[in-house]
């Protein structure tokens, strides 16, 4: 794996689609495009052929910063053992109406 990094003709973009007003943009997939404008157009053709969306975001894949996949256990450790953050932890009040 010492060879030159391979260069794609066009960069990769991640596509997020809002399916209806009032909902979040959700990751739909990715595509290649030379620039943002064509990425949006390609995303429309590729991910909304059956009116799946009312709004599209495109983000250069290279611009996304992700949490370290190898550190996921340590990184996401803190909520464990903190059941008291969930309503279901509180059982004594279970039978009380509107609570």
């Amino acid at each position: 794996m010492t060879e030159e990094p391979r260069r794609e003709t066009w960069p990769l973009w991640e596509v997020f689609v809002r399916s209806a007003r009032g909902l979040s943009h959700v990751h739909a997939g990715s595509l290649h495009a030379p620039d943002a404008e064509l990425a949006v157009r390609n995303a429309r053709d590729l991910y909304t052929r059956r009116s799946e969306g009312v709004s599209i975001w495109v983000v250069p894949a290279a611009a996304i910063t992700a949490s370290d996949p190898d550190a996921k256990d340590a990184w996401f450790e803190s909520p464990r053992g903190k059941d008291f953050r969930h309503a279901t932890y509180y059982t004594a009040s279970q039978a009380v109406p509107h609570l």
Partner: protein
Amino acid sequence: MPAEEPPTTASQEAARLAAFDSLIAADQRIEPTDWMPPAYRKALVRQMSQHAHSEIIGMQPEGNWITRAPSLKRKAILMAKVQDEAGHGLYLYSAAETLGTTRDEMLDALHSGKAKYSSIFNYLAPSWADMGSIGWLVDGAAIANQVPLCRASYGPYGRAMVRICKEESFHQRQGFEILLALMNGTDEQQAMAQESVNRWYAPALMMFGPPDAESPNSRQSMAWKIKRFSNDELRQRFVDMIVPQAEILGITLPDPDLRWNEERGHHDFGELDWAEFHAVLHGNGQANALRLAKRRAAHAEGEWVREAARAYAERTATSERMAS
């Protein structure tokens, strides 16, 4: 490709493999950033890129019929279907790229003839009824194959398949309706439909791949939960589905050994010509050379468009930088 990993000790290696195996055993999904055995990665790249290539090459038999389809409605339907196939190819290429291969590498492998695609597309589609048979039988077999892949252990593959399966269901129905229209037509139209089904039936059954006994890759793929059912299981399921459909069409499936087996609760069907399957797979089908030549030409003819768009994007980015 993923960044070069620091050398690992044998015990670290064993721990990674154990973590992977337990995810598979728990029916969890493997995601791009997870460690995975190199053989798993390789098998996925091979299967997913072949699958993508099949969608892209699969645009050709129907693309050829768009101008000749018998009505404006049929032309519009065919265009939508070919556009879906392009889309399905692109979903699958993107999913395969999450494994570290590049789009350009996959296309090079297709264009050089190194990569395979489904051998069904190396049969010619000379009659309008073939658009019906391709939709009903070829897309039908593809759907039977693809529905279980929605649960493939590799997350991006499964997600791409969910999207594909949702869109694919219209493909089979429109094919069935083309045949139904012909079967409700003149004697000549009925004969055209029957003649077409006669040609596509056996190749469609062979789309599920060689018999289980001759398919060693498929055992490993099932152990990894990429595939969920064996080739023979899926083939049987498909035959059981199309027999009653053929009755509704009033079409005869060209297999003298096809009959209901009460004991098994399935249809028995005749031996398939695996010599033909392998011959087509290895380049000796009706249209191998034609399909590949057309794909290469399309890619070469698009080169200046891709290059112009890239150059425009570069220049716009530069002038924006200078303006700010």
